[in-house]
Structures are given as C-alpha cells and as structure tokens.
C-alpha cells in the first residue's frame, strides 16, 4: 500500500526523462558562452572522438545496471583485451600477425571475464559488486603478467590507421560507438533480453515467481558487458598503438557516473541505453569544457563521485520509510 502513494511521484516522469537532455543542452550553451573555442568543429570532433570508448562501455554497463547489479571489472576486461590484441596482430613482441581475426579473438578474454562474472554471481550467489571487484583485480593482474613490464607495440598499420582515422568528418571509433549504441537500443527495446532485464531490475522475486529464466539473463548481461569492454580495449589499443594495463584507467568510475547521470538508477528497473548515452556525452562535454576553463582533470573523479551520490539520492528519496532495511 505504501507504493500506491508513491505513484504520483513516479508520474513526474517527463521531468526525469528529459532532465538529462536539458542539462546537456544547458552545459553546451554555458561552455560555448564561457569559451569561444568550445563550439568549433575541431573541438566538437575531439569530443566525439573522446566519447567513443565511454559510449561503448556505457551500453554494456546499462544492461547490468538495469538488472540492479553493477560491473566493476570493465577496466580489467579492457586491459586483458588490449594486451591480447597487441600480441596477436603484428607487433613488437610476438610473431603473430593475425590481423582481423586477431582483433576478434582479442575480444574473447573480455567476454570470458564477463561470463565468469555472471556464472559466479548466479551459481555461487556472490553479490555482483564483490564478484566484479574480485575479477577486476584478477584480470588486471593477468594483464600485468602478459605485459611483463614492457608493453607490446602494435605494428599493424591498418589497425592503427583505423584507430586514428576518420570516415568523412567522423572518427572511425565514433562510428563503431554509434553502431554499438544502435545495437544496444535494439536489444533493449526489441528483445527479451532487454525487456526481461528491465523486469529483473524492477522486481526480481516477482520475475522469478513468474517463471522467467532470471539467471540466464543475468549471465547474458555480464557477458555482454565484458564483450563490449573487450571491444573497447581493442579499439583503445588501436588508438594508442600498444597494449597497456592502464588502458581503461578511470573508465569504471566514469561509466557508472554516466549511466547514473543519464537516469538509469543503480537500483535497477529504470533507464536505458539512450539515457546512458546522453550521460556519457554530458560527461565528455563536462570534461572538455572544464579543461578550457582551467580546472584540473583530477577534479573530475571527485565530481563524478558527487554526481553518483546526488543522482542516487534524487532517484530513491521518495522510497524512504521508517523501518526500511537498507544495507
């Protein structure tokens, strides 16, 4: 019966839905006014380029968060895939030259970590934050072993050209990101995976009672997140030209922030891929603009933390009641 009275709050959905977009527009306008260099094509292209990898990561994270879980291991997946690709295509360390198949194979480690996350979580009943905290550490360690102190350099010129180049006006990586975004959108709105993930986030016990194969979709969400993190790692390596353990440094936090600020609640059950994309773009604009204004990039992490906190507060404030148990 409590929930009845809360319905009226949920009905203010329009504000909640369009809030992030409005905020993004306000930000853009604000920065353009404060700094003329912001609104140039050159700068916008830079922002588009910077968005690419975060966008890809945000799609994967969205499905996990929609279900009410979290994936802290994406940096480790990125690192593993980054080193794998740097050792499978033409490179300075090993004799492989697998080209495109090397690229595809390199995404597998990321996906395997994701699968592992999902299986451990559903079969061993370990909460997602703990599972992914553990696999984050383990996969980073594995990546460090592979790297062995001297990062392998990528000598495959096609790959490097792809990573740095543009098609028309848009950076290649951004095109990949847009394709991934489209895939994510279709999955979310037109497949069981997307709809059931939403159901799981909104009421897992109900979903189970109704006979939905909840565990299957949880594993799928984590595998998808790991897959996309692997892809991001591969593309990142293409961009910087080597395989590096720190390729994903800071991305976990940024991705969680982007997802939350876009309107996908960490409690699960609301939000989506497009909303997360808006959040990602907002963060990229914020980062870009702040540099122009002269703010140190390290402040970003603190700002992201504050954003996660405020957004979560706003999202669940109305659910508080006297003896509610939250741990």
């Amino acid at each position, binding site marked *: 019966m409590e929930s009845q009275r809360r319905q009226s709050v949920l009905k203010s959905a329009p504000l909640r839905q369009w809030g992030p977009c409005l905020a993004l527009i306000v930000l853009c306008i604000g920065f353009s006014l404060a700094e003329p260099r912001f609104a140039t094509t050159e700068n916008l292209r830079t922002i588009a380029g910077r968005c690419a990898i975060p966008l890809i990561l945000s799609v994967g994270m969205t499905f996990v968060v929609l*279900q*009410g*879980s*979290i994936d802290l291991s994406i940096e480790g997946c990125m690192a593993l895939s980054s080193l794998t690709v740097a050792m499978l295509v033409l490179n300075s360390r090993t004799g492989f030259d697998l080209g495109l198949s090397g690229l595809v194979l390199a995404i597998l480690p990321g996906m395997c970590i994701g699968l592992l996350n999902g299986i*451990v*979580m*559903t079969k*061993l*009943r*370990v*909460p*997602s*934050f*703990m*599972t992914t*905290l*553990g*696999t*984050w*550490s*383990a*996969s*980073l*360690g*594995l990546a*460090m*072993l592979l790297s*062995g102190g001297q990062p392998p350099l990528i000598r495959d010129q096609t790959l490097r050209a792809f990573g740095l180049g543009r098609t028309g006006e848009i950076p290649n990586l951004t095109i990949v990101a847009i394709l991934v975004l489209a895939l994510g959108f279709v999955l979310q709105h037109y497949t069981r995976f997307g709809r059931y993930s939403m159901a799981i986030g909104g009421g*897992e*016990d109900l979903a189970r009672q109704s006979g939905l194969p909840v565990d299957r979709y949880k594993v799928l969400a984590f595998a998808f997140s790991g897959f996309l993190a692997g892809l991001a790692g591969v593309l990142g390596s293409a961009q910087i030209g080597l395989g590096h353990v720190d390729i994903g440094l800071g991305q976990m*936090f940024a991705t*969680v*922030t982007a997802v939350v600020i876009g309107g996908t609640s*960490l409690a*699960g059950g609301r939000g989506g891929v497009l909303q997360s994309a808006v959040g990602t773009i907002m963060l990229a604009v914020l980062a870009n603009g702040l540099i122009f204004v002269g703010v*140190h990039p*390290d*402040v*970003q*992490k*603190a*700002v*992201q*933390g*504050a954003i*996660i*906190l405020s957004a*979560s*507060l706003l999202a*669940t*404030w109305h*659910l*508080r009641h006297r*003896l*509610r*148990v*939250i*741990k």
Partner: protein
Amino acid sequence: MRLMQRIRLPPAIGPLVVLLALLCAIGAAQPSFLSFGNLSVLAAESSVILLLATAQTVVILLGGIDLSMAALASLASVLIALALPWAGFYGMIAVLALTTFIGALQGYVHAHAQLPSVVVTLAGLGMWSGIALTIAHTTIPVDAGYFAVGWLEDYSFGIPHSFAFAAAALMILAAFLHWLPLGRHIRAIGLNAKAAQLSGVRMARVQILAFTLTGLFSGLAGMAMVARTYSGNPTIADSLLLPSIAAVLIGGTAMTGGTGGLGRTLIGALIIAALRIGIAAAGFDPAYEPIIYGVLVVTAVALMTERANAPIVK
C-alpha cells in the same frame, strides 16, 4: 586468547589452519624466512591492512561494505604529510578528526537517505580520491614534524610498534563489541535487521557509528603509511582496498552480516601478509598478488554465504 574462545562457529578453525599451513609452506621453501626478524617485518607489513580491515569488519558485520576506506586513507596521508611540518602532532589529530567526520557523514547519508552502502561508499571513493589527487599531484615528502608519526616505525623487544598499535586498536574495538550493547546490536542488525528494529534497536545510529569508525581507522591507516614512507601520496593506499576486504572475508566474517568478528580478521590479515611475502619469497611475479586477492575474495564469499540468507543476489 580470550578472543579466540569467543568464536563459536567451527569455520573459525579453518582460517587459523590455513595461516599455519601457509607459514609452514613458506618455511619449508625458505627456512630462513621464519626467523623472528622476518616475522617482525611480516607483522609490520600487515599493520596498514589490519587497520583498514578492523573497521571494515564492523561494517561487514552490519551487512554493508565500505569501498571508500582506501581512498580516504590516501587522502589522510596527503593531509597529514602537509600538516606535520607546520602543525606537528596536533595537525595530525586534526586530520584524524576530519576523516572521522567524513566517515560519519557517509554513514549519515547511508542511514537517513537509505542509500545502499555500496553506492554511498563508491561515490565516496571517487570524491576522496579526486580531492586527494587535486591537492597533491605527486608524493609529498615530510620534511619536518616526522617525529609525530615516527614512533610507529620503531621496534620494542623486536616487535614493530605499527603492528602493536594496529593489534591494540583491534583488541580495544573487539572488547567494546563484546562488552558494550552496541556489539550485540551490530550483530542483531546483521542477522535480522527487521527483528532488531522491532526490538528497539536504532539501526540508523548503529550504521552511522560503524561508518564513523571506518573514517577514524582510514585516518589511522593514512598515518601509518606516512610513517612508513616518510611521505604522503594521493594513491598510496588505493591498492589496499581489496586486500583489506579479503582479510575480513577469509578470516571468516560472512558478507551477509552477523557472524564473524575481529579475532578472525586478525588471522585473515596475517594470512594476507603471509601471502604477499610468500609470493615474493617464492620468486613469483608480483602481478600474481591481485589475481590471488581476486580469487580469494570471491571464493571466501561463495563459501561463507548461507544460501537461505540471500534469496535475491544483485
């Protein structure tokens, strides 16, 4: 030790056996390792993790978690390194007061806004780390005033002060948990928060207190790091988050809350320290450490989780 006798469940024996087995294995591989001098170093090595794990135990007993402790410890190290030269001992106390306050704040938000501890402390992780990085981009050496923390690095009767300090803090807290009503309240909340509340336990107050403790101990950990490295650094403690959580979990405290305790965390911290030194002694690549921590943490939780207690796992 009286603490050990308070441990009720059979699983408590397990970690102790693991510790002894580890020490034996290392001793067999490198007999020189088990000298008193080496063990002292082992103890000193584990003091920072022990400090972090001590307060983390309280939070985990409640059924929550604090992901921000390491970042707060790093921030504390930076602030202490800055404060020591001109404010000496009192500057350090002020920093400890600040971290305690920050912990209380996190607890307040968690309890009154009813946000999960994961979310609040994840946000905190970002904020304190970001602030630390903004204040100090690199290491800050302590030029003057080191004496205020230097005593931690001394040895008496072969025992490092840092370890003695951490162990003493643990035992004092353990005594409090055993003899104060608060200890029972914490366990009651961990086992069955609804029943605890309906018995008159004020969950919000207990939660705030638990996170105040983590704030204090994060500060103490930062202090210990400054003592060891003669400097403050904005990311120095970051890599210690997982090992400190691992120490609590492999010691045998259940993540679901209610069962476990500080005595077990002591054993867990020693196991972690033994692992670290064991890896180095055996000549393995140091990259194996994070892999082992990751596997350990997940295994520990998987083994300790009572299936019935956690029907919905997110």
